[in-house]
């Protein structure tokens, strides 16, 4: 499996989802050779546990058995989830300056070259390892998956967590979409995180339906979440995740302005970072509602958990949302959720409020409704929490296993 480390880059769902799936597969007794890009300087946070000696995720409950089933192969690389050319160049510069570390100057000169270099390394690993099927997560590893297939002759499933059409208004970067097209059209099976995403893959990349499968993301219960000491009673509305065009931060701020007029004590917390953070702050100032806003920046998981627990409502007004794992995180804390109608998560969870992302009046009305009507917030929180409790990564892993078996049957 070509996956991603968990957690260091928890700014998005990809690392969480691929690690969750690995944990689920191990739980079913499946052997996994996990290939990860090993970044020379992952972000340092006191609460982060970086994948090592089989400790794949916090959900691991039988670590010894898992260590046995899991073989970890790391490839030194600057690849990380959601990386863009600009961010890659920054990392490359930083790596060049970082002379005291493992840096050998062998990274690709640009993102495309680095993706290809990673694919070559994948081919070398595939020739050495023994395995039945190949599973690659998101476009950065599709070429690695294809190369591994060429080297081993084993069938390949690519897992689409997002497409370039979700990330960008204008169809995005040509190299990204070309790589994505290559991956989804050449793979033996394409696993999408939602029917919504499967439809996009089918329509935009002309992938035949009989090769497409949907495996929704899941979430596993954690033992203790820890209640935050609530120092104040002001209603709190939360936005968390990457602050990018895709996530619709401007709609959140426009709706917040309408809500703030009705409930003077309301507070809005924005947890996360991204290329739209600055424009988002500018918009808050333009609306004159900065005293209602708290920008926390990137938060380590434990602090983010406390924020989910404290929030009265979680809002995910994405323009395009393949899944929306953060909605599950909020519901796990019994926090009511408002999501875009098109979000993949609403294919598995019924107890959420849905909005058209551009309809800020409707979004604001729903935020106000949740804050004003306690029977509504109680029902959304408690029913949603029950629904989320029925999801598990093991079930998602079982569905992937079924896809693997299909590929192996076809192989004969």
């Amino acid at each position, binding site marked *: 499996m070509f996956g991603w480390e968990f957690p260091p880059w928890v700014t998005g769902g990809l690392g969480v989802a691929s690690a969750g799936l690995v944990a689920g597969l191990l739980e079913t007794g499946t052997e996994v050779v996990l290939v990860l890009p090993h970044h020379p300087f992952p972000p340092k946070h006191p609460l982060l546990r970086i994948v090592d000696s089989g400790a794949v995720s916090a959900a691991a409950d039988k670590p010894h058995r898992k260590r046995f089933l899991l073989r970890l192969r790391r490839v030194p690389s600057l690849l990380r989830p959601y990386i863009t050319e600009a961010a890659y160049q920054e990392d490359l510069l930083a790596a060049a300056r970082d002379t005291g570390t493992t840096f050998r100057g062998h990274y690709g000169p640009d993102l495309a070259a680095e993706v290809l270099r990673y694919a070559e390394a994948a081919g070398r690993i595939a020739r050495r390892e023994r395995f039945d099927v190949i599973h690659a997560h998101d476009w950065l590893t599709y070429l690695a998956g294809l190369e591994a297939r060429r080297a081993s002759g084993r069938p390949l499933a690519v897992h689409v967590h997002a497409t370039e059409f979700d990330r960008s208004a204008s169809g995005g970067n040509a190299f990204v979409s070309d790589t994505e097209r290559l991956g989804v059209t050449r793979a033996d099976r394409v696993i999408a995180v939602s029917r919504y995403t499967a439809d996009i893959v089918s329509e935009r990349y002309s992938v035949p339906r009989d090769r497409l499968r949907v495996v929704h993301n899941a979430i596993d219960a954690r033992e203790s979440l820890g209640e935050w000491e609530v120092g104040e*009673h*002001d*209603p709190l509305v939360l936005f968390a995740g990457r602050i990018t065009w895709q996530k619709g931060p401007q709609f959140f701020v426009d709706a917040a302005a*309408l809500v703030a007029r*009705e*409930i003077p*004590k309301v507070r809005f917390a924005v947890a996360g970072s991204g290329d739209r953070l600055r424009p988002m702050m500018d918009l808050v100032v333009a609306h004159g509602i900065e005293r209602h806003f708290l920008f926390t920046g990137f938060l380590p998981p434990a602090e983010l958990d406390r924020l989910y627990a404290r929030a*009265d409502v979680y809002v995910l007004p994405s323009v395009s949302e393949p899944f929306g794992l953060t909605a599950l995180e909020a519901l796990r804390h019994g926090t009511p959720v408002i999501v875009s109608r098109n979000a993949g998560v609403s294919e598995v969870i*019924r*107890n959420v*409020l*849905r909005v058209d992302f551009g309809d800020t*009046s*409707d979004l*604001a*009305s*729903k935020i*106000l*409704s949740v*804050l*004003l*009507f*306690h*029977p*509504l917030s*109680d*029902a*959304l929180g408690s*029913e949603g929490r029950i629904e989320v409790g029925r999801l598990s990564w093991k079930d998602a892993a079982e569905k992937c296993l079924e896809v693997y078996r299909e590929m192996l049957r076809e192989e004969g």
Partner: protein
Amino acid sequence: MIPVCLYFQVHQPYRLRPYNYFDVGRDHRYFDDDRNRALLERVAEKCYIPATAMLLRLLERHPAFAVSFSLSGCLLQQLREFAPHVRAAFQALAATGRVEFLAETSHHSLAWLASRAEFTEQTAIHRAQIEEDFGVTPRVFRNTELIYSDELALYLDEQGYAGVLADGVEPLLGPRSPDHLYRAMTPRGLPLLLRDYRLSDDIAFRFSNRTWKEHPLTSEKYDRWVSALTGDVLSLFMDFETFGEHQWKETGIFQFFEAWVELYLSRPGARFLTPSSAIEELPARERLSAPRLLSWADEARDLSAWQGNELQRDALRRLFSLEERTKASGSESALQDFRRLTTSDHFYYMATKSYGDGEVHAYFSPFDSPYEAYMAFMHIVSDLERRVAPARRDGPRSYPHPHPLPA
């Protein structure tokens, strides 16, 4: 042959339009006139016109055929506005003299659960509507969705009704058969006519269900079942919309029903009774007790379809908290809106039952989810509240169950 008592519920609510927080205080139009008209026209074409024509044929052909209706006041009012030809079709049925119209609330409402005063007023309005449209006074009572209890029976008995309808469910009957005339648990023993839910639902719910082991249901098969019964009266109660709407005409529901009536009436002694004639002619058996409220809805046959969750209970409480103020305001339009909001359908759409029943609720609901239904209703009630009890201009915004904001 066992006599058959047919009763059809005919009702269409005034469905709400999408209404959000920012409409409160600005827009007093609560009902989706275009949608209500379109839906009424559709159901008229698919059901009311062909189904009344079928019944008229049967009435003209067979002196022993008779039928009864409960026409809700919401429906009668919408027929006046949008479909006078359907109203005329019901009047043509009434002119045969073998069609009974039952008493109920004007707004197919949950008033019995919330306010005795409002319940009494709505039954009086409905009585006047039936008298005006059909020239007859209803005598037998049928509460919204067959909601029934001993307390209701006692009230109806005191009001002088000739009888009452309920669903023939186990909590009421125990091991007894529903196919007799019983008495309610009142001093006088108000006559109580009970729906045979098995044979009713065979037509209303299961007719076109391909996974049902009796599918397809033929008139001959149904006739065999009815012929095998030994009781005093078979009460078949169902939505009139069963014909052509819940069961599409392509399923053969019209041909089935007409053929079955013909077949049944070819048997010696076969005849149809209206509720009033059943009450007059048949011997009434023992008193049956219903200490708790029952209904014909969902699997549970209780109030859970409309009052099963806190959203539904909150909405009903909030609405009726405005009853006195609305009446005291002297605003006819506010009172009309209040009454249209008491209709049971609005609460039905807020049900959060997950499986089985939930699918039926979703089928009927104009809303995306029970939460949407609740929010629209609550914002509308908030607007009504401002109309009947304007907030002080300098005061805080009055809102139902506000979030506890510290001062």
